[in-house]
Each structure stands twice: as C-alpha cells, then as structure tokens.
C-alpha cells in the first residue's frame, strides 16, 4: 500500500517537472524581452526614440552589442493607439530598421537597399486597428502590444561617426 501511494506522487512529480520545463522555455524569451523593453522605456518612456552612445564595455542593456554599429531604438506600446516611426536612411553604408515582438520575433525589417526614397515613414498599429494613414506612410501590424524598434548603421571607420550620428537622430517614434 505504501509503495502504491508514493508511486502516485512520483507520477505527479514527473508531470510537475514536465510542466515546469515547458513553461520555463515558453516564458524565458518573453521575460527577457520584457526586461529589455522596460529598460529602454525607463530611458525615455514608451514611444520615444533613444540614441545610445556607440557600444563599448559599459553597454550592458542588451546582450552582444556590436561596437561597429550605431543603434537607435524605441520601446513601443500600441495598446493605446498607433505609433508613427520615421527614419532617414544614411548613404553608402549598411542600415536597417527592424521591429521585434514581445516574444522576441523579428516581425519587420527593411534595409537601405530596399528604401528608394531616402527615408521611411511607418505607422505601427495593433492588428485590426482602423488607422488614418498619413499620406506616404506605410502600415505595419504589430503582433504584440509592446516591443522594440531598432535601427542599425555600420560606422565604417570612425571618420563618418559625426555624420552618421546626425542622420541617426532623425529617427523618431511618437504616438500618431
């Protein structure tokens, strides 16, 4: 009788271990992304651009930063309405604008070669939202209310740092 009793508990233990395993794997990226998004939002608030200094050993907000890129970023929150994202594309260097959902998925990316107008004008909105698009703007549906927008520009040698920094600061992120 005693053995049968423990057998039941052992079976429950196996179930608990399996559920804890699956939940951890599922929760981990969401928790890490949430921390990163909130850290960014602490700097300037949600839906506000941040222009961090070029990464060095003091850059500890996001793992594995590249010291060869200039980043601009924005923690977005489309829960209370669409967010307009605009950026100017620098000449003759790799540049991209990418968006990441709350589960870490890279749901949107555009690079300098794909942009012909020299600038991008995007409206990010929760899926199913009715949006009055400003002329020339493109609608992007966000798979989650919160996430991160990130621009990258290769700082090819330090001689262009000032120029690329100026272009980077024309990246804006604000409620529509």
């Amino acid at each position, binding site marked *: *009788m*005693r053995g049968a*009793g423990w057998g039941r*508990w*052992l079976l*429950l*233990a*196996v179930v*608990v*271990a*399996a*559920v*804890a*395993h*699956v*939940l*951890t*794997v*599922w929760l*981990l*990226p969401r928790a*890490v*992304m949430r921390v*990163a998004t909130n850290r960014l939002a602490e700097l300037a608030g949600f839906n506000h651009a941040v222009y961090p200094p070029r*990464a*060095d*050993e003091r*850059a*500890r907000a*996001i*793992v*594995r*930063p*590249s*010291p*060869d890129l200039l980043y601009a970023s924005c923690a977005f929150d489309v829960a209370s309405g669409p967010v307009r994202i605009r950026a100017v594309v620098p000449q003759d260097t*790799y540049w*991209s604008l*990418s968006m*990441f959902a709350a*589960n*870490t*998925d*890279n*749901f949107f*990316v555009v*690079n300098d*070669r794909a942009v012909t107008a020299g600038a991008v004008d995007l409206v990010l909105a929760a899926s199913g939202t009715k949006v009055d698009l400003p002329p020339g703007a493109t609608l992007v549906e966000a798979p989650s209310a919160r996430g*991160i927008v*990130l621009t990258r520009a*290769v700082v*090819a*040698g330090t001689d262009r740092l000032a120029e690329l920094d100026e272009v980077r600061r024309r990246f804006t992120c604000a409620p529509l």
Partner: protein
Amino acid sequence: MAARQRNGKPVRRALGVIALLLCALLVGVVTAVLGVRNRFASGGVRSGVWATNAHIGSSGAGPYLRAGVALGGLLALNAGETVYYTATTDESGASLGTSCEYRVEGREPDTRWWSITAYGDDHFLIPGSNGRYSVDGTTVEKGADGSFVVRVGGAPRAGNWISTGGAGASRPFSLTLRLYNPDPSIVGDLAGAPLPRIVREACS
C-alpha cells in the same frame, strides 16, 4: 487519507511530498535552461568551429531556439539580413580562453559587410579591451586575394588585433562573426560557408 492514518506520520509524509515536488520543479526549470543554452551554442548548423541557426530572428524559430536567442542574442536579425556565427572553441575543440592567444585566418566572406567581435562569458564586450573589441571588413588589413590573419588575445599589437581584456584570471570568451546582407549562396548553405579558422598559438 487512509494511508496517512495507517502510517501515523502524516507530517513527515507531507514534507516528503513537498520536497519531492520542489525537486521536480527544480529539475524542470534546470533542464529547460540547459536545453535552451545548448540549443543556441551548438544547435542548428556548424561550419568548422562556427555555429549558427537559419531560424535566428525568424518567426519560424522553435521555442528552444527562441529562448536561446533571447539569452544570447536578443534583437538579432533574420538570416536574409544578417547571419550570426558564434565560435566558443578553437580548431582543436578546446574552449576559447582569455589567457591564450589565437590566430584567426581566412578569406573575406562573400557578403556586403562583416565583422568579428569578442564577447565575455556574460555576453558583453570585454572590459580592458581599450576599444579593440572587433575587426571589420572595412578596416581589416588584408592581402590582394582577400586573405587576412587576425590575432585575438595576448599582448597589444598594431593592425589586425582583437583584445580579450589582457592580464588576469583566464575566463571563457566567444567570437561572433556577423555577415550583413550575405550572398544568397551563404544563406542557402550555412554549413558550407568558407569561414576563418581559429588556431591557438600560446597560453600564459
């Protein structure tokens, strides 16, 4: 309930059950974290000592890879945009350590822009590197045929050199090779891409 009355030690039994379930919880969480770490470091595809995964950054990423990328490469781009290869060992299979000096030798990859960057075991740039965190395709010194040799670790050098923080206790580190807008032949055959070799020279 019947068992409790027969045993006459309900408190001990309850404590035993609680300990068992806590252990189960711990086992579940620890195996998850280990599985996730493994998946990022060695899962997916390898070309020599360099590991990557075609689904980094993509919504096709499985739950383990997604969790692994969150820990070791949050905000990574998808493979069409950027391929990220990471090496944690040299050609002999020994872990990269900050007390050793390495020779990274290869030929320019077929990509718009590339860089090799050293990271500490905390996934951040290594303190004490005096700005020498990386080499990249625009500033690397290379031969007419596109071949290059980059020294990693050891005493400071002029030219192609990446610091691993100088003196102090030996700690593991890793190298990340970024290929921006890689040629479709690389994206189509991540395991076949000709990538630099990492050869250990000397250790202090």
